């Protein structure tokens, strides 16, 4: 960890300029809870670190005029948790973000970093996908938006173009009767990496599911949007048959690895189990919303 330059620009244009000029030799620093570990392990050796936490847009949370939220990419999990409204509107997204590491890690770690780290097991990503969150990215050619599900390209790789920086997440407004939830399976209760993670976001009207999105983590090279699982729920009254069909869709979507955390067979089975439990929590919240 030597011979690194450090920049903490105050504007995005400055950050993008420096990041793009370094041509792949630079890394973006939000909370640093992944980057510093990777640098120490020798996995990355950036010539330049661009700290984005001095840029106001990167560290602010705003409620948009239509009732949605815009979350800066470098907002920490702790700050998001302290927002007076966010956790009431998006409890599933918040519980997913707050599962990243310990309280100490939460003081630094951000959903933007979690997404750009591109781990298939990143906890916030399935919940953001279920929430239909869209990210804004800025690069040398300007700004563009993309759905969260389109950001990861594979383990440790994203679809951001060279020089592009993740700026913020935009979460849509919530209709009445909407609820979301996130559950992950880990062998202990804290401080571990998801064996499977499942985010569900659904809307109920008079007991009938009118919209549903399911994000599934740690079962494929990237976090998945399981469209078929959502379709199986929509139009149903979340009866056992519909939920089993959604669970089957989750199992069918799994292309997991075998490793010390879980086998292919185990992860696939758990994907269905988690879907059922997560739907139950999201539906309870939707019923109260």
């Amino acid at each position, binding site marked *: *960890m*030597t*011979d*690194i*330059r*450090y920049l*903490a620009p105050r504007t995005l244009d400055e950050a993008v300029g420096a990041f793009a000029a370094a041509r792949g030799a630079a890394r973006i*620093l939000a*909370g*640093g*809870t992944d980057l*510093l*570990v990777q*640098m*120490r392990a020798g996995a990355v050796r950036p010539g330049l*670190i661009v*700290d984005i*936490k001095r840029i106001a847009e990167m560290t602010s949370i705003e409620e948009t005029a239509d009732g949605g939220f815009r979350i800066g990419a470098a907002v920490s999990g*702790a700050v998001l948790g302290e927002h007076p409204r966010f956790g009431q509107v998006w409890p599933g997204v918040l519980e997913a973000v707050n599962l990243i*590491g*310990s*309280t*100490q*890690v939460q*003081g*630094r770690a951000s959903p933007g970093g979690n997404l750009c780290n591109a781990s298939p097991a990143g906890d916030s990503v399935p919940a953001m996908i279920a929430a239909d969150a869209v990210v804004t990215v800025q690069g040398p050619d300007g700004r563009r938006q993309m759905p969260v599900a389109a950001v990861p390209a594979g383990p440790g790789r994203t679809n951001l173009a060279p020089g592009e920086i993740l700026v913020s997440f935009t979460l849509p407004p919530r209709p009445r009767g909407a609820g979301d939830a996130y559950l992950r399976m880990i062998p202990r*209760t*804290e*401080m571990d990496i998801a064996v499977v993670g499942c985010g569900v976001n659904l809307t109920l009207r008079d007991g009938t599911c009118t919209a549903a999105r399911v994000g599934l983590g740690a079962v494929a090279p990237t976090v998945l949007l399981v469209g078929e699982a959502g379709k199986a729920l929509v139009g149903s009254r979340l009866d056992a048959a519909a939920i089993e069909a959604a669970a089957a869709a989750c199992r069918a979507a799994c292309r997991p690895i075998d490793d010390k955390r879980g086998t292919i067979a185990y992860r696939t089975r758990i994907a269905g189990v988690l879907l059922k439990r997560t739907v139950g929590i999201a539906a309870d919240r939707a019923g109260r919303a």
Partner: protein
Amino acid sequence: MPTQATPQAEPDRVTITLTVNGKPRSLALEPWTTLLDLLREELGLTGTKKGCDHGQCGACTVLLDGRRVNSCLALAVMQDGASVTTIEGLAAADGTLHPMQTAFIEQDAFQCGYCTPGQICSAIALLEEDHAQNPDEIRELMSGNICRCGAYPNIVAAIEQVMASGGEPAP
């Protein structure tokens, strides 16, 4: 050309100001210096311990602007203008221990003591955050601090003792 050299930081160093245990410091740092290494190696504040150096064990926990963070995962240059409190900064000027330090002694909440500075800083922030109402929640919210000796029951008892006495806000 001025003939008198002005004192200047080396080109690869970054100058920051940091309040450490109440004292403002101006520091010229290599950008890759972690807050933990700054405290231990440059400022001689060796109370903050290096355990895993990966953000998993919590031995390096300090209070940064009142919030608990793993100092091993924070670059010092990121903290320009911030205020850091370490285990050395908890006692009053006359040596009176912080209530959490007293409770750790009274409850025998350590054996080897290596994790203790991090446990105490973390516990003080825990009370400030005010999310833990019972022993289970204390355990969950202290899960970022690992104790190899297994002093957990006594650590929880120490935190409960301070909670019961009305606590004390983090400095």
